[in-house]
């Protein structure tokens, strides 16, 4: 019996070993490393306690990055959850089946394209001289708004954020459509009988009925926004003059350009803390759901 139980454990062993070594260990080790100062090029580590965190509090780029992540999160929730839900409701409620499927597919396509491809493409679209965006503004007679979107510290991060919405909203729309499809039809019929218009029906039926999915998506979107790295790295590298740094890119450049490994680990720990809280909320949420069902 004991031997068989041991043999059975072998089925789960590879998964557990991989997760322990490459997910749990690095995250715990990262917290430990954040208490040291060290460099790739010199051996030896100096214990500094919470010095790296103090350094973060006094680092204007850290705060700029945090603010950018926050802007990223808020914008993404508005478009990838709010607007995507409206879109899903319109697709499900107003559009014939065949066209609906086609549109859903079309909207999803950018999500199959990597952030790198999308980022490099948009880098050109934002390009000041020949980019399509300025060129479109000029042909619409709005030439005075044309400018170097990614080269201006005031707009650089927003150029990246906008691209990210373009890339990702189809993905969340797809998921929300699935949630909307699961709403019992009777509720809509009842709302129609009660004389509720489309807007009222949306807020009185659709929104509450897909709350599970929207809560999950809000949490996933917020965590994603605090981990963002790829698109910023490809489009601006955090520049100009650090205006579009995010925590992820600032971690990267502190570690591999600034060679301040302990500080990078501290930034990583801050990112971990933020996303962990989001994840814990998700866990509690799904617990509550399990009790409710």
């Amino acid at each position: 019996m004991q031997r068989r139980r041991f043999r059975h454990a072998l089925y789960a062993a590879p998964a557990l070993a991989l997760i322990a070594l490459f997910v749990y260990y690095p995250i715990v080790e990262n917290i430990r490393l954040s208490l040291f100062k060290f460099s790739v090029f010199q051996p030896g580590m100096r214990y500094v306690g919470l010095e790296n965190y103090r350094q973060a509090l006094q680092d204007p780029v850290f705060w700029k990055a945090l603010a950018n992540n926050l802007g990223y999160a808020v914008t993404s929730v508005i478009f990838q959850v709010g607007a995507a839900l409206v879109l899903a409701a319109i697709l499900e409620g107003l559009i014939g089946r065949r066209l609906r499927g086609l549109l859903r597919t079309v909207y999803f396509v950018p999500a199959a394209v990597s952030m790198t491809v999308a980022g490099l493409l948009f880098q050109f679209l934002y390009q000041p001289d020949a980019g399509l965006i300025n060129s479109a503004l000029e042909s619409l007679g709005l030439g005075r708004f044309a400018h170097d979107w990614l080269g201006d510290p005031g707009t650089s991060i927003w150029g990246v954020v906008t691209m990210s919405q373009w890339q990702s909203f189809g993905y969340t729309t797809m998921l929300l459509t699935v949630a909307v499809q699961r709403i019992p039809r009777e509720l809509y019929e009842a709302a129609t009988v009660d004389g509720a218009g489309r807007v009222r029906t949306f807020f009185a039926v659709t929104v509450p009925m897909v709350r599970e999915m929207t809560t999950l998506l809000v949490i996933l979107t917020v965590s994603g926004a605090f981990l963002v790295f790829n698109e910023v790295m490809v489009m601006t590298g955090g520049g100009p003059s650090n205006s579009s740094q995010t925590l992820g890119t600032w971690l990267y450049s502190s570690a591999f350009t600034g060679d301040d490994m302990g500080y990078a680990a501290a930034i990583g720990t801050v990112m971990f803390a933020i996303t962990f809280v989001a994840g814990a909320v998700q866990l509690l949420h799904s617990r509550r759901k399990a009790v409710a069902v």
Partner: protein
Amino acid sequence: MTLALHEPAPAKAPPAVPGERRGRPARSGSVVLRVLTYCGLAALAVAVVYPLCWMALSGLKTNGEIFSDPWGLPAHPGWGTYADAWHQGVLGYLLNSALVTAASVLAVVLISAWAAYGLTRLALPFSQPALLLVLGAMMLSPTVALVPLTQLLQALHIYDTYWALIVLYTAFKVPFTTFLIRAYLLGQPVEVEEAALIDGASRWQTFWRVVVPMARPILVSAALLQALFSWNEYAFALVFITDEHLKTLPVGLADMAGRLNSDWPMLFAGLTIAALPMIVIFLVAQRHFVRGLSEGIGK
């Protein structure tokens, strides 16, 4: 956690006759509204697709054409630029990506299916803590731990090798994939497996001959999601690979963009080649993608 899902969602939307019924214009004035809605949806579709088409077309243009007439069609379309991009590095990146993607897809599906089978069908020692350990890892993102991961990969002597990416892509996605397959298995009857065991099949044979065929739909979904992730992953590929010959597409293309600097057609050709495989796979296997996504995120 509630990850106890019941039946898998039907692959297609449930036969949604009601959609048609609701689709009919209900009151006066809604015709205008309908037209506006259609226009809005069409405009959005154009905004989504146009940049991608423009990218593919620009690979057929010359640099001069892109700058003087960005909206125009190529005057002398030819596949020369695509061929050049292919030979100037894209082929190498593509092969690296294909290798890493194939290996991590195979590894993640296999390891997760074993784990899901063990956790649903067998009496494991410490099965509750093990389950929590696996599913809890879904909330964690190892990308915050670039510094210790670098040290770990160096200590294991796999830094700057294919293995670094294969191992990380697999380990990172085992929790989610296990969750996906486990949820599916929980909704499947165990009678067939029991019959096989009674007939004298070993656990191992039962896994391969009964469980794997039964779970095929979710295994396909899981494989597709993993392929999408591995093909497009950037952060690990940037940090853990420095050898030019080992770089995968996302990092290789970003390098190429810096290297080519002003040769835009070449870059757009490269981007198109990189994007195409996943777009095609998505269009072909769409319902598996949707199933995986919607099952995975919970309902």
